């Protein structure tokens, strides 16, 4: 028995971390947020060179065929470095959906370009979790109509779309009748947007296996967002501890004040077990799909709650400078906020957890 990361997994995380430390991080995130780029092409190129987009694609289709845990470790690192790159949808949810529900032809056509990063894929699934007034997708004959909000990895070449019956489709971003509008959120490192479908041609994924693929990839997406949150929160805690050791007030470093120490201790005490939780949730996704759903819900919700505490406390430990743009602490703060609400906020996801255990009438 070994509950932990293999050497390869540690190496993977270190190499992605090393690359982002050199080329990504706050500076690049700022530039992306301020500069109106649609995609951070340089970063994406580097990420492709590391083979990241092919992590979950099988070898037959040009990928590495790794388990979700490897992707989650990369997601954690992406969060740690507030990386502006399409990941949750393009690297995780869409390749998984195509692998699980696509036809052989679809797999052969789409997976290789997803695996080498030449094709970017967004995901329009929000309405399967909770539809806001006016948002709804319907399939009629061979076209989609309706509206999808908060489409993930929005600056994409193709979209994975779920209709109201949870059936899945692939749509070209340049398809006729498709209107796209970017939605601006607090987190400027993660493009999301709205898609309006007016008789838009789409290609259904046949889903011959008959499993609820939509649920499977939402599980995966939730684990990935939780991993991203873990990385972001860990970074905020690290920054708070480091800053407290150099900032002096009243003739002492503030790290020597018990109030500051206990805030940091509480952050660490809450955050540290989340690491094991994220590992397990990602591992069990592949090892036991049935158990996975509950673990994915709890991991998403619990990480969101813990990270909320961490993001507030870490900002407070910094004092005024934490509120300013100077150290850019708010980039992590906002990334944590984004992850909290997307693919189901904490109490929505907890209610799903209760339903899975038949605790809801």
């Amino acid at each position, binding site marked *: 028995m070994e509950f932990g990361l293999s050497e390869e997994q540690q190496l993977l995380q270190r190499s992605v971390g090393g690359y982002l430390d050199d080329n990504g991080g706050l500076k690049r995130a700022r530039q992306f947020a301020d500069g109106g780029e649609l995609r951070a092409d340089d970063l994406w190129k580097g990420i492709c060179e590391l083979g990241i987009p092919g992590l979950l694609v099988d070898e037959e289709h040009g990928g590495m065929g790794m388990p979700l845990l490897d992707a989650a470790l990369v997601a954690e690192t992406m969060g740690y470095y507030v990386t502006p790159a399409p990941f949750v949808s393009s690297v995780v949810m869409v390749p998984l959906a195509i692998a699980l529900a696509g036809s052989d032809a679809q797999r052969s056509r789409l997976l290789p370009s997803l695996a080498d990063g030449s094709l970017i894929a967004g995901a329009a699934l929000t309405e399967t979790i909770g539809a806001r007034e006016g948002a709804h997708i319907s399939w009629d004959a061979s076209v989609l109509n309706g509206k999808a909000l908060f489409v993930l990895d929005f600056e994409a070449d193709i979209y994975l779309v779920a209709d109201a019956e949870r059936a899945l489709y692939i749509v070209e971003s340049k398809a006729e009748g498709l209107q796209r509008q970017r939605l601006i959120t607090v987190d400027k490192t993660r493009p999301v947007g709205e898609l309006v479908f007016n008789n838009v041609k789409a290609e259904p994924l046949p889903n011959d296996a008959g499993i609820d693929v939509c649920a499977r990839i939402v599980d995966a997406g939730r684990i990935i967002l939780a991993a991203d949150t873990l990385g972001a929160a860990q970074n905020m805690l690290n920054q708070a501890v480091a800053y407290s050791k150099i900032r002096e*007030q009243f003739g002492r470093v503030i790290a020597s004040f018990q109030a500051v120490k206990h805030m940091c201790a509480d952050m660490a005490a809450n955050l540290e077990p989340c690491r094991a939780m994220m590992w397990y949730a990602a591992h069990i996704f592949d090892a036991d799909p049935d158990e996975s759903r509950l673990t994915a819900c709890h991991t998403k919700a619990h990480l969101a709650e813990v990270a909320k505490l961490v993001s507030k406390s870490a900002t407070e430990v910094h004092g005024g400078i934490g509120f300013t743009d100077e150290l850019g602490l708010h980039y992590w703060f906002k990334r944590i906020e984004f992850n909290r609400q997307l693919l189901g906020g904490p*109490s929505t996801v907890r209610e799903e957890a209760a339903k899975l255990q038949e605790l809801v009438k």
Partner: protein
Amino acid sequence: MDLSFGEEYEEYRQTVRGFIEENAHLAPGRGQVNAEKTRAWQRLLIENGYAVRTIPKEYGGGGLEPDILKSRIIAEEFARAQLPAGMGGGGISFLAPVLLDKGTDELKKKFIAPTIRGEMTWCQGYSEPNAGSDLASLSTRAVLDGDEWVINGQKIWTSGAKSSDWMFCLVRTEPDAPKHRGISFLLLSMDSPGLDVRPLETMTGVPFFNEVFFTDVRVPKDQIIGQRGEGWAIANAILRHERDSLGDPDDSLRRLNLLIELMKQETVDGQRIIDNAVYRDQLMQIQGRIMALRFNDLRLLSAKMTGQDVALATMIVKLQGTELRHSLESLAIDALGEHGILYGEGPYLRNHGSWQHDYMQFLGLIIGGGTNQIQRNIISERGLGMPREPKAK
């Protein structure tokens, strides 16, 4: 317990209402930038005893006796009519009373009247990058050179620095004195050569605070309030005042009512958000907390009138009020789900993105005006008589 205002005051309330009805058309609109209209409105209010009513007539004020109830009635009636009850800002709220109390005749004559008429606007220069919680360790230096102070250093968190005509600020003038006794309170023009104002970017993205840099800024020697080295005591009186104004429960109540409306309108999967029992319970918790702070405020108002000691009930306002408001905004974001994190502009933004803005802004206020950790020190030491931390060896 008598929560009525009494007959005399009810009559006064009618007078105020009459004034408002007659003159509402003269008031500047919401967010109006017509400075002259704003100033004309301010003058009209002063003439009628509705603004700066206790400042003596000789300095341009109303010259009336302090009357907390009348002040409250004025505030309530103007709020009801959604009209500004005069100009606010540090000059009128904080500086004018200090000038009256501690200023020389010359300073009073020169500064009070234009300040309260809104012709001279003020910003406040206290915090520095290395003097936040430990404000008394500030290091911006002023040295006397003939008839002028020469100032070098830097201030931060200066709201309104770009739009203000003048600044009142704390500078170190007695470097050899103990830190609390080496600080003086100076007044200076924002047009002074050597002053550089740079906007401070914060997490909200909405400009609000500034940094102000001083390079050999020269200020006439007599633009000092109080004696050399008395600045800390003067500033502290202002700070206490400022803290009380953060986390106003009436303002939280307005936000709560807005949130209730929102939760009634918004739906997820066809179900109104207010019908979600989990959010509804959290909403009710917030409503209870606001209620407690509002009644606490009434108690404080009443105690001020009767001169009772309610020090502890006063000290807790900033800590409780800012945390409460932050929680309220946070609940709104959770209840809105993905829509809660929309910000800036766009079609699905609710209430102009104010939930997200205030959520961040109030985290700033939990930190600002004396962090809530410092508030807890104050409450435990001054409110509960617990000892200060022993000095480090």
